[in-house]
C-alpha cells in the first residue's frame, strides 16, 4: 500500500494530517497541525479533502472556532450509549420507604421520616421513582407546601396488586406476626413476657391492696 502512496504525495500529506488529528489530545488549529507535519505541506487543502472524504462516514472531520477534530457522526450517537439492565435488590431503606408510601399515600417526605423514625437519604426516593413505582403526587396545602408522594400503576402491577386495598391491613400484619420486632433478643424477651402474662391473668390484685 505504501508504494502507491509514495507515488502520490498528495495522499501522503492527507494521511499525515489525518493521523495527526486522530492522535491529538485536543482539537488542533491549522498552525498546530503544520507544526507536526512540517512547513511544506498544504494543511488547508488536506483538511478540505479529509472533510469530504469523511463526510459520509461514521466519523466526521469538523471545525469548531478555528480548531479541527474528528468526531463520531451525530446520527450514530444513539449507538454509542448502550443500556444494560441489571437486576438489583432494593435497599432496606427503599423497601421501607416504598411500604410507607403505599400504606399512607399521599405522604410527604417529612411524614415518611416521622413514620420510619429515620431520615431518608436523597437517593432513596430517586431510586423508587427511577423504578417507576413512586411518583410525586402534588403539594399539600399546609405550611411549607410539602411535596407528597404516591405509588403508581406500575407499582401495583409489579407487586401483583389490583389496588392498594389489596395490601394487608395492620391487623393482618399483626396476625401474621409481622408487627413483631425482628430482633431475636427481643423475640425471646417477648416469649418470657408472654408466659408471665399468662400467669398474671389469674391473679387478683386485692391481695396487694
Amino acid at each position, binding site marked *: 500500500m505504501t508504494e502507491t502512496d509514495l507515488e502520490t504525495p498528495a495522499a501522503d500529506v492527507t494521511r499525515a494530517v489525518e493521523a495527526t488529528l486522530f492522535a491529538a489530545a485536543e482539537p488542533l488549529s491549522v498552525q498546530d497541525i503544520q507544526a507536526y507535519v512540517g512547513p511544506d505541506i498544504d494543511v488547508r487543502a488536506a483538511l478540505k479533502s479529509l472533510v469530504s472524504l469523511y463526510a459520509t462516514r461514521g466519523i466526521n472531520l469538523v471545525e469548531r472556532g478555528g480548531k479541527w477534530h474528528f468526531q463520531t457522526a451525530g446520527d450514530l450517537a444513539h449507538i454509542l450509549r*448502550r443500556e*444494560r439492565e441489571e437486576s*438489583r435488590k432494593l435497599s432496606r431503606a427503599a423497601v421501607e420507604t416504598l*411500604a410507607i408510601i403505599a400504606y399512607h399515600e399521599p405522604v410527604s417526605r417529612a411524614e415518611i421520616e416521622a413514620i420510619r423514625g429515620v431520615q431518608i437519604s436523597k437517593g432513596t426516593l430517586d431510586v423508587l421513582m427511577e423504578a417507576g*413505582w413512586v411518583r410525586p403526587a402534588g403539594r399539600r396545602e399546609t405550611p411549607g407546601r410539602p411535596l407528597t408522594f404516591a405509588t403508581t400503576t406500575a407499582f401495583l402491577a409489579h407487586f401483583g396488586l389490583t389496588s392498594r386495598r389489596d395490601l394487608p391491613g395492620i391487623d393482618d400484619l399483626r396476625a401474621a406476626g*409481622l408487627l413483631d420486632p425482628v430482633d431475636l433478643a427481643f423475640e425471646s424477651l417477648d416469649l418470657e413476657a408472654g408466659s408471665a402474662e399468662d400467669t398474671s391473668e389469674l391473679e387478683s390484685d386485692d391481695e396487694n391492696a
Partner: protein
Amino acid sequence: MSQEQLILDPFEAPLPADEARLTVELGSWEGPLDLLLTLARTQKVDLREISILALVDQYLAYINDARALKLEIAADYLVMAAWLAYLKSGLLLPKDPEIEPSPEELALRLQLRLERLNAMRDAGARLMGRDRLGRDVFTRGTPEGLRVVRKALWDANLFDLIQAYGQVKARAEPPLHVVHQRNVLTLEEAIDRVSRLVGSLVEWTVIHQFLPDNGDPQFRKSALASSFLATLELARQGKIALRQEEAFAPLYVRAA
C-alpha cells in the same frame, strides 16, 4: 581455533581496533552465559559453527584479565570458569568412554543453550524495534467514549414490602414496658403479719398456720419464704421462739 590468538592482554591492545576485544567490565554482563554468548558472537554469527574450545579460552582469558585487574568476580563466573576449564581438559584429552557425559556432549549442550539465549535476545530486539503503541503508532487522542447506561431492574416482592411495613410499624409504636406485678408477700408485710398473729401465743404453732392463703401457689411459696425470714428476724429480736425437731421437720413458733 584461530580465534584464540585474538585474545590479548587488554593493556597491550590498541583501543577498539580488535572487534574480538572485550573490555573487562563484568558489571555489564547478565551472568556467565551472557558473557559466553557475547564472546561466541565475536567468533561467528552462526552459533552452530562456533568453536567451543576457542570460546572456553576466550572466557578463561577474560576472567584472568578481570582477576589481574583485581575486579571482584561474582561466584557464578568463577564456577563457570572452573567448569569450562574442566570441559577444555576433557575435550583435549584422549577420549575416555568411561566418562559420562562425554565432553562432546557437554560442549553440545553449552552450544544449544547459547543458541537459545541468542534466539531470545534477537527476538527481544525485534520486538522492541516494532512500531509500538504509544511511541510510534497512536490510538485516538480524545475518544468520545462509549457509555453503558446501567438501567437497574429493581427487585422487590410483595412480602418484602409488607414485612418492611410491619417492621416500621413495630419500630414506630411507642415502647410500652409492662412491669408485671408479681404476687408476693414482702418481708415487711410478713413481719407485721407474723408478729400480729403470734401475739402472745404460748402454744407451739406450726409456721404454716400464719401464712395467708389466696389460692395462688406462687403467692403461697413467697409467703412461706418471707414468713420464715420474718420469724428469724422476730426471734433475733427476742419476741418469739422457734423450734424444729430436725432438718425439714415442721417449724414451730410461739411467743417468747
